[in-house]
């Protein structure tokens, strides 16, 4: 039987949460430093990634390795919100390094820094509130959480691609690069629109499965903890589902293509984040 393994169950967990928070602070400081350098444009040679970015990235690697190997095999590698969000943050950090190396996308690394910090803080908050392993209750809980996480990753890609569409669209209309982002050369609008639509379609499938799984574990199973249909989590999840359903429709509807579809993908992601935040409000439910 797997025991609860979320954060705040032991002193070491509190330390881990604190270190993740420290990494988040590092990314915020890196964002501020990079922003200042870009505004000052003091050097002709583009500066490297800020030191706090590198240190925070190393801290994330250390934290993940510590969690994975410390209690292996009693604990699965990705079995709590903390683990999942830490992994996402690390993947985003690596993406930031890649973007920074590619001169035509360097400006995007700047935008990624607060996103990484947000992901980390959300992960820590969720884990502190939920405080348990995904595998704690039943197979349906596991199914629900895994499909939600996979769907979230797909929606994250859709939102990022949507944001890239809007940046390119703005650059094309202004006939110049956007302020502190500097010279960012993104893929063609048609390419980013395709990625947005496909990622959103994939996420929509996962989200639908997640809602089915969530519905079964909440309303059908005999040992379910009944939740009101009016709870913020369910209402927000339905709103997200509707948004992405609309985004699917955008693929076929001429009027909602282009920038509108990009905005919808971002709005959907914001609402999805709100669903996560609602878990903090209702900590007993996954």
């Amino acid at each position: 039987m797997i025991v609860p393994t979320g954060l705040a169950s032991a002193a070491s967990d509190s330390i881990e949460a604190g270190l993740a928070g420290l990494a988040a602070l590092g990314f915020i400081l890196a964002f501020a430093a990079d922003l200042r350098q870009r505004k000052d444009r003091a050097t002709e040679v583009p500066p490297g990634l800020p030191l706090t970015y590198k240190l925070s990235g190393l801290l994330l690697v250390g934290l993940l390795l510590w969690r994975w190997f410390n209690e292996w095999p009693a604990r699965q590698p990705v079995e709590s919100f903390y683990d999942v969000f830490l992994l996402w943050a690390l993947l985003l950090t690596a993406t930031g390094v890649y973007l920074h190396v590619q001169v035509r996308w360097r400006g995007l690394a700047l935008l990624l820094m607060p996103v990484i910090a947000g992901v980390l803080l959300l992960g820590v908050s969720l884990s502190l509130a939920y405080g348990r392993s995904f595998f704690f209750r039943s197979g349906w809980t596991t199914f629900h959480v895994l499909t939600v996480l996979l769907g979230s990753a797909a929606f994250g890609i859709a939102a990022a691609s949507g944001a890239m569409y809007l940046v390119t669209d703005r650059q094309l209309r202004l006939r110049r690069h956007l302020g502190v982002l500097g010279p960012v050369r993104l893929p063609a609008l048609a390419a980013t629109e395709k990625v947005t639509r496909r990622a959103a379609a994939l996420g929509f499938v996962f989200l639908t499965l997640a809602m089915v799984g969530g519905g079964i574990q909440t309303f059908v199973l005999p040992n379910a903890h009944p939740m009101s249909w009016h709870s913020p989590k369910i209402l927000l999840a339905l709103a997200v589902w509707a948004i992405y359903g609309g985004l699917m429709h955008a693929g076929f509807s001429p009027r909602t293509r282009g920038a509108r579809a990009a905005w919808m993908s971002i709005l959907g992601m914001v609402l999805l984040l709100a669903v996560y935040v609602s878990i903090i409000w209702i900590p007993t439910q996954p």
Partner: protein
Amino acid sequence: MMSDVIPSSSLPLCMVGVNHRTAALELRERLAFDATQTQTFLADLHARYPALEAVLLSTCNRVELYVAGGEVMPGPDELLGILAEFHHLPLAPLLPAMHSQTGLDAVAHLFAVTCSLDSMVLGETQIIGQVKQAYLSAHKAGCVGALGHALFQKALTTAKLVQEQTELTAGRLSIASVAVELVQSVFDRFDDKRVLCIGAGKMAALLLRHLQALKPQTMTIVNRSPARAQALAAAMQAQAANWDVLPTLLTQADIILTSTGAPQPIITEALMRPILKARQYRPAVLVDIAVPRDVAPAVGNLDNLYLYNIDDLQQVADSNRKQRDQAIAHAQTIIAQQVQSFAQWRQQRDLAPLITTFHQNIQCIATEQMAMLLAAHPEWSPAQQHDVQRTVQRIISKILHTPTRQIRAADDPLRQQIMAEMLRELFALPAQPSSDAPAAPLNPAFLSDSPSDAPSH
């Protein structure tokens, strides 16, 4: 430029030639080499100086000969004379236009040329392919040895680094190529795209020629004078259409060029609104190079329509030019680092035989002394002999380790060279053999046609 880093004399490399800064076009074209002439010239040079490595770079901006190694290195004047002789030109008029570099200055010059810092159009990428071609031609002629391989592969790698890490080669500079770049920012494929050209002037033809390279599905030309439209269509392998069907063509087209002499806009917001709906809001790029403008500015505010007039294109071109100028310092920093890295590689390569000889000499002494010691003590058991031998080996290793590490780790190449000379003198080591004798193999990755696929060296 780099002569303060390492004495140029220690690197047997010389570059001589003329370029767009030193010689007029007339002189450059008289001295230019085509592919066949290059092969013949290199074969002649190889016959005259068999030990000499040589690469001839001949482009519209420059004719430069890079020579390296060899027992006898001809001087710049002599090399220029050989170039002139090939074309049956007198040397005297060429001498004032000649420019030459030696040692690391020549390395830095080649890297700057390959990175397009020395080009007439700053940041143009054609030069990378031309340098690669010159290198491959010389390799084919059997004129490239270890130094030449390392030098040109490093030059191509440096160009790739500059391309990746700076904005030197980013963005287009001409109006037509800027228009193509903008079109490529909207669409990711062109085999299903339709180009509509309204007007049949020279600028329209130039733009169409650039767009033709994208291989669109169709190209249609409309003009008030059908004869001119048909003439241009025939020249561009496009199709001509009547002015009457313009609204239908606007509904179908994805890329719209306008270049008429109309005094009033021919494409207005009122015209485009229903057309946009009929197009199902498919995106379109409108490039208006007419003065006065053919497309009303308000059309650019409509959803999924991207409108550019001649000033917009010029603004983008100017911005790209400014961006390239700003990237020069960064590119120069990268080049300086790569020249330094090349110098260190060369220095390490020169050190290797010396250090090997040094170690072998000491080892030889130790072996002799061990043999004498073992002969004097026949009573020692094999285990005792082994222990003594091991101890001696440890002592030798420890003694050799520090000077070897110190000489290899010396930051300043000049200091490193002095240390090497001292080592040679103190231990009476023989004069250093040439390290360029065995030719390094050609990296197969450099055989590719693409100018930007040079691997890291």
